[in-house]
């Protein structure tokens, strides 16, 4: 049961096409598993359609239709061979990769502390987007941190409590500089989150800060 959803503003920005590439990946992972957000997204796209329909038309160039027909007649760009499936690090049994990561490069799991691993997600179409996976063992806690910009998180599996609320598989969270939290994993199973940060995570402790800087999240 999904308890936390993206805000209407985020979904509207996605529908409008003004959301940055990293956010689209994380939001897409949530939307894939959330029927209600899918319906909202389609509704917001329908607003786009209505806006388009009601826009006062702008004159096209006199040869616009001719040029367009010529482009149609030109041979279509050669179909690219289907890309070989990209290597993927391991996931716990029963957990699937979100489709939004299909074209992304996902690094192997790197150690970042006892029971904590992370992986870098690289977007082919936006290599400087800061997108990463965190994999935290049951019962562990991530160091207390705040954010220099907006951090979006999608929980792929497991659950944690960060003092504000409990987040479980399928949940989505948006946290900014006003949120200073320490996600504490619930016992039972490990937790994997897909996240993107517009700024950097700002950790409290010196060691956590050092690891955060080294890892680059």
């Amino acid at each position, binding site marked *: 049961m999904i308890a936390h959803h993206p805000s209407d503003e985020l979904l509207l920005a996605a529908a409008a096409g003004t959301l940055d590439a990293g956010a689209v990946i994380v939001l897409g992972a949530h939307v894939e598993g959330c*029927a209600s957000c899918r319906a909202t997204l389609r509704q917001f796209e329908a607003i786009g359609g209505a806006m388009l329909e009601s826009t006062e038309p702008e004159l096209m160039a006199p040869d616009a239709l001719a040029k367009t027909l010529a482009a149609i007649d030109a041979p279509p760009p050669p179909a690219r061979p289907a890309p070989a499936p990209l290597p993927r690090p391991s996931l716990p049994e029963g957990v699937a990769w979100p489709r939004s990561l299909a074209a992304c490069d996902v690094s192997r799991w790197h150690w970042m502390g006892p029971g904590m691993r992370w992986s870098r997600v690289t977007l082919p179409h936006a290599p400087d987007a800061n997108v990463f996976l965190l994999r935290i063992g049951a019962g562990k806690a991530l160091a207390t941190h705040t954010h220099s910009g907006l951090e979006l998180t999608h929980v792929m599996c497991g659950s944690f409590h960060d003092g504000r609320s409990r987040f479980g598989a399928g949940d989505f969270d948006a946290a900014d500089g006003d949120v200073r939290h320490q996600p504490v994993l619930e016992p039972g199973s490990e937790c994997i989150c897909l996240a993107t940060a517009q700024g950097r995570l700002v950790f409290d402790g010196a060691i956590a800060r050092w690891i955060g800087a080294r890892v680059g999240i």
Partner: protein
Amino acid sequence: MPTGDEWIEIVRAVAVAGDRSAFAVLFKHFAPRVKAHLMRAGVAHELAEELAQETMVNVWRKAASFDAARAQLSTWIFTIARNLHIDQMRRQRDAHGAHEANDTADGDGADLLAQVAHDAPRPDEQIDTARREGAVREALRRLAPEQVQILRLAFYDEQSHARIAADLDVPLGTVKSRIRLAVGHLRRLLQGMEP
């Protein structure tokens, strides 16, 4: 202007028979609107012209995949134009930045969300598209004109927001909070219309 059903026939004629006069009808109606929409969103005149033409090329190529049960024609064309615009901005950024140009001309990244959003509706979300889109249009009609104007802003980029904030002589944050209010109002209207 063709009715909804006639539009569907027109797209089918393009998809099935490669009917150029049917395509010309689509072009005449939608290309000038796509261009106008992009210009409002801050795209320069010449580039908007180019992207509008490119949108229509994609309409031709993808006509067979248009499914009237999933989206209205204007919504489908809106998403095509949106994805081309996103890709164009990425290419521009790549050209300016130090990265190698990435070949995303067919919109892998931008299409993704559209694909997820338009996956075949699952059994629990078999709501009739026509009804849903009808509801959106009805809600927009019921919304105060100023709020529709504000909602329109959500479809434009940050720079346009800054420009509009300057025009209205209000802080940027005010534009954003007005957008939030308008979205909330629209959502309440839509919820009120659900059976």
